[in-house]
């Protein structure tokens, strides 16, 4: 019997790193150099760092601290109190976008009004916050002209005209809005001239990716429910509008779905819809949520993963000739391990086992478990949710945004996810779940399993909220990955890792030349001793959100990267060697390193 060998053996790299780090940690304790301070960390330097990747000691963990108030970000996502209609529960995407290309991630929040507001002509204001490089942000929405795109659900970043300036794609309750970045701090709505005005349905997940490798970002948009403000199902009106016997909003079950759309970039600022020809039109009209491009089987062609709410996911395999075939069932990622469809909200991709392959993590509704599909190669995945220790912990929650996130900088991506119910009514009944729910953090144990550390990373993530999208990135260029959480009700949340081991790290920003300018779906394989990890530039993902486009590797005790192997979307492969850790590298296709910067002193400010 030739079973694919399990890859959750204790790998030599992880073992060595753990031993080395425990040693160093012990040394740091002896020298009274505690890393437990709640103060923001000083920029790392190999001379002073204490390193630890052993997750077993709570005091050793960085704390995810709520620094929202110090950032100057004031934004309120609107929400009706009762959420009597499904579209009032689904918005909440957030994007990290360096729109002014100053090397500091800025933040864009989507916003959505209630049905009542919409019917009376009122709009919800989405918002763009400029990163002031000192730990604070300034609301530049009005100047940028991105405040009122639509009833905004999600957001993704791409560079549709290849001018090097990242553009914004907003998914709306009725269609999409494409904002062209003018390069001067302003954006222009080019939806119509780009040929996207025909997209009229309820759009949710969007993702840019150059599926035909012509150097131009194509665009996929998943659509959700076929519903309009003039034809709304009545709250509690049927079995599909009830939850544990309580009257709630209707849908998506019982409502009609919408087909999905793939737009081919014509290379002249316009798109042409090719969904049907390409085979990704979703004729079954499943309830599409999040979508993301990646080359799962590493055959050189971008594949497409689309989650569907309560229905089987799609995994479209790219044949390299402009056609896709749904292989989700045969690949093992369509449904749960028992063959049951789950809610399929947010998607995270990550090489959590250091195999060089991207596994899939998906968040779900309560009474379902968040699923971790391990990528075994050759379009074969295994549901590792139970074996990895994730399933039981995640089952009670309605979860959304998620990410593989190396918040300890030990080189092993952990998992972070946020939750919050869709029915405020659950608070009035004993149904075993609440409207506001805590966030969850799982530590990668370097052996294929994860440890629930949600209560070990500080109080901020234990506070119950109604969260939706999350975006991760190094907001303060301090070498640590922060998390921006958009909530459905009220203020967003900025979480910064503080304290814990002073592990090394390295960051890459890629620019394509023959490849698309943002280098979407470029992969970097970083080798530091026996710590070998792979990262990727991704558009979209999480839940209707956009992470930082830079690739970040934690390096634990390694003060340099022996080798960085870059696989560009064009197929070119470049190798860089002996890269000093704790620096931000800008790489250009065919030109290697174009700049290298140390972390910013601004990191100490928030």
């Amino acid at each position: 019997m030739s079973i694919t060998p399990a890859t959750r053996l204790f790998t030599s790299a992880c073992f060595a790193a753990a031993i080395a780090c425990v040693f160093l940690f012990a040394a740091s304790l002896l020298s009274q150099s505690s890393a437990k301070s709640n103060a923001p960390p000083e920029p790392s330097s190999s001379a002073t760092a204490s390193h630890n990747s052993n997750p077993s000691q709570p005091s050793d963990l960085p704390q995810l601290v709520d620094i929202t108030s110090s950032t100057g970000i004031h934004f309120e996502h609107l929400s009706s109190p009762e959420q009597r209609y499904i579209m009032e529960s689904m918005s909440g995407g957030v994007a990290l976008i360096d729109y002014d290309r100053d090397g500091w991630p800025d933040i864009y929040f989507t916003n959505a009004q209630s049905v009542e507001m919409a019917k009376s002509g009122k709009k919800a204001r989405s918002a763009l916050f400029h990163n002031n490089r000192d730990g604070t942000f300034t609301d530049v929405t009005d100047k940028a002209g991105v405040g009122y795109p639509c009833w905004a659900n999600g957001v993704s970043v791409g560079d549709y005209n290849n001018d090097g300036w990242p553009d914004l794609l907003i998914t709306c309750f009725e269609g999409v809005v494409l904002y062209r970045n003018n390069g001067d701090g302003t954006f222009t709505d080019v939806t119509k001239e780009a040929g996207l005005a025909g997209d009229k349905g309820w759009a949710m997940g969007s993702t840019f990716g150059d599926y035909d490798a012509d150097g131009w970002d194509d665009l996929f948009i998943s659509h959700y429910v076929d519903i309009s403000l003039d034809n709304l199902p009545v709250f509690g009106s049927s079995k599909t509008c009830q939850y544990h016997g309580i009257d709630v909003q209707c849908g998506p079950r019982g409502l009609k779905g919408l087909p999905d759309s793939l737009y081919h970039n014509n290379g002249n600022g316009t798109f042409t819809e090719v969904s049907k020809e390409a085979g990704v039109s979703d004729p079954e009209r499943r309830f599409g949520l999040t979508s993301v491009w990646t080359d799962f089987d590493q055959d050189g062609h971008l594949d497409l993963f689309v989650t569907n709410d309560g229905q089987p996911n799609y995994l479209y395999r790219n044949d390299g000739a402009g056609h896709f075939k749904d292989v989700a069932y045969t690949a093992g990622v369509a449904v749960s391990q028992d063959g049951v469809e789950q809610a399929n909200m947010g998607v995270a991709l990550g090489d959590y086992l250091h195999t060089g392959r991207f596994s899939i993590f998906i968040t779900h509704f309560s009474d379902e478990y968040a699923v971790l599909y391990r990528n075994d190669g050759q379009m074969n995945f295994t549901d590792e949710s139970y074996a990895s220790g994730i399933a039981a912990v995640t089952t009670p929650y309605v979860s959304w945004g998620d990410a593989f996130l190396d918040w300890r900088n030990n080189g092993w991506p952990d998992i972070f996810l946020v939750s919050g119910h869709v029915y405020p009514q659950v608070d009035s009944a004993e149904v075993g779940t609440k409207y506001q729910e805590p966030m969850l953090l799982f530590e990668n144990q370097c052996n294929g399993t994860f440890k629930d550390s949600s209560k070990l990373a500080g109080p901020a993530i234990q506070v119950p909220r109604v969260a939706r999208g999350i975006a991760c990135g190094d907001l303060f260029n301090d070498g640590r990955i922060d998390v921006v959480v958009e909530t459905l009700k009220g203020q967003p949340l900025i979480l910064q890792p503080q304290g814990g081991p002073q592990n090394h790290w390295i960051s890459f920003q890629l620019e394509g030349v023959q490849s698309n300018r943002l280098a979407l779906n470029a992969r970097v394989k970083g080798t530091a001793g026996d710590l070998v990890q792979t990262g990727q530039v991704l558009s979209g993902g999480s839940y209707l959100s956009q992470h930082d486009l830079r690739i970040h590797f934690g390096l634990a005790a390694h003060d340099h990267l022996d080798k960085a192997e870059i696989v560009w979307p064009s197929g070119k492969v470049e190798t860089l060697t002996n890269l000093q850790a704790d620096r931000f590298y800008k790489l250009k296709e065919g030109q290697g390193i174009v700049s290298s910067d140390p972390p910013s002193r601004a990191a100490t400010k928030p």
Partner: protein
Amino acid sequence: MKKTEVFLLWTLLLFCSVPCCSQSSPSRQQQIEAHLTQAQADISQNRPDLAIGEFKAIVALDPRNVDARGNLGVLLFFHGQNADAIPQLRAALRLQPNLPKIQALLGLAEKRTGDLISAAADLQTAFPKLQEEKIQVQTGMELIDLYSATGDLPKAVPVIATLRDKDPTNVEMIYTAYRIYSSLLDETRLSLIVAGPNSARAHQMMAQELARQGHTDEAIANYREALKIDPNASGLHFELAEMLNSSGAAGSREEAEKEYQAALALNPQDEKSECKLGDLAALRGDQNAAAEHYGRALKLQPNDSEAMIGLAKAFMTLNQPEKALPLLQQAVKIDPTNATAHFRLSTLYRKMGRADDASRELADYQKYKAMKEKLRETYRQMRLDPGKKDQEDDARN
């Protein structure tokens, strides 16, 4: 069905023979043959009323003529003259007892004249002997109707079971069965309440009823009350555990686990509780404990496909596919429509590189899943709620 056709269906004797038992003189015999010929003509012209007269004449000439008695009885019955039909049919049966169709018709006639006791006796005797399906169905349904009227519903159970075996998709039969069982349920429920209003079983029954109506909390309260009255009553701990397990309330799963354990303590042979404990262990990620529970369940009930699937799942999670494979293969043999088992097996074959086997199992999974979904959807669509529908219509207008 036309009256003539119905009549012909019921007759056994008409036209196929002339009297053979009687010792008539040639002249009487000729008269009888003449009457019979005329009766044939009347029947073929759809004039049973005239044929009745001819058969009466024959009976007058030859009172021991079974065929004439029988056919006269049949004609009178279908002519609505039940009271007149009865003596003719009885006479025929006296002369020749092994005539189940005649006896069934006699039972029907007796039922229609209000002689329910005789009717029940005749229909009951005739029913198992009837060969023609349509006649057996009609007889069976009349018998069930009669049992229903006389309060003898338990006697209807084997009758409907026989009928359903013969025609499993017959909607009328299925509905009749449903009515019999639900009436029996009502009757039993009432008896239990009358006999032991404060008994553990009465509370257990009430809990089941509340659970069926979706009143989980009230059901749990009744189970708890039942357990207070009789902590050792069989099935109580398991049912309470099931209710707690499905309630979703905080801490209910832990409580459910305790109740399953209590059920097992009372009855170590309780295979279902072992299985459920396996499910709970698997849910909290303790696959070794899950495997132990499922393993014990399988020892108690080697053909329980759910325990097989559970154990196979645990083995798959523990990365022991070689142990999972035979279990899943056996599970789909025992329970061929179990979509989960087919899906699991498909996953396992895929991991083993057995692509064709994986595809076959995946196809089976999709087939059975679609079938169940269709059923669920049909049921959902049938749940018409005029009040809610009106609300929706109002809102849209």
